[in-house]
């Protein structure tokens, strides 16, 4: 029924992960960094589901892992945005290269 090879899902996932890494490393605003992290987590989810579908052989553990990843990503987004709002309240600034008061 499905003719797309597994490796094309892995290519899509690799591209998405690379874009996410670029977003995390290069963006200035902390919220953009958070969005890059979300892209990377979703790349991992695509990998998990592709392997479950094609190579799982009736084993659905990958699907369960995706559920856990989505849950933890949601918790992480909530805490990260709370931290960003708190930093903004303290320093009027959410640029990750300027918030460096913990630097020794």
């Amino acid at each position: 029924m499905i003719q797309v090879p597994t490796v094309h899902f892995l290519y899509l996932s690799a591209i998405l992960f690379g874009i996410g890494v670029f977003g995390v490393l290069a963006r200035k605003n902390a919220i953009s960094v958070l969005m890059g992290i979300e892209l990377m987590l979703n790349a991992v989810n695509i990998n998990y589901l592709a392997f479950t579908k094609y190579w799982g052989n009736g084993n659905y553990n990958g699907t369960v892992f995706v559920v856990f990843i989505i849950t933890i990503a949601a918790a992480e987004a909530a805490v990260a945005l709370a931290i960003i709002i708190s930093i903004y309240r303290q320093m009027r600034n959410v640029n990750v290269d300027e918030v460096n008061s913990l630097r020794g």
Partner: protein
Amino acid sequence: MTMTTTLFYILAGVITASALMVVTLRNLFHCALFLAVTMLGISGVFLYLGSEFLAAVQVLIYVGAVTVLVIFGIMLTRNVMDEKAKAMNTQLLPALAVAIVLGLITFLAVSNSSFQWTDHPTAAMKTASSIPSPAPVEVKANDVYTLGPELISPDNGFAFAFELVSILLLSALVGAIVVARKDPT
């Protein structure tokens, strides 16, 4: 090339293009909207992979909750982003190099791997692992029937993780409120 495979490549193009928009656009609000488009495309890929439940969860949580949360964050920190400010920090070129090298390594590793087949594991894979693999089970039409017992039946070890992740969610909720509260008294 049938219609469904064409649909997958269209989806992949949409996902890649909108993900690039997410990391390159200057206006953060547009970034968040393109993040929603990316997540919708990824939920389409999940549908393509036969996980209807997870596709619905993806739309509910990412498009519905995380994007709204991100937009709230953008609006609460609004006036720091003037339109002329640079979107990228000073390590743009090293970051580009790292991302491209990482993507290329993953790409090459995947394309040289043995995951080219669309089918279930081959005989070589089965003999490589000494554990006898279970007989191929027919993929059910609806993944909720497989996901529910996998998730909370006490037999296969995920019930404990399920409880742990609910405690994590609760503590993240409380922690987010405490961190974002105005006067920490």
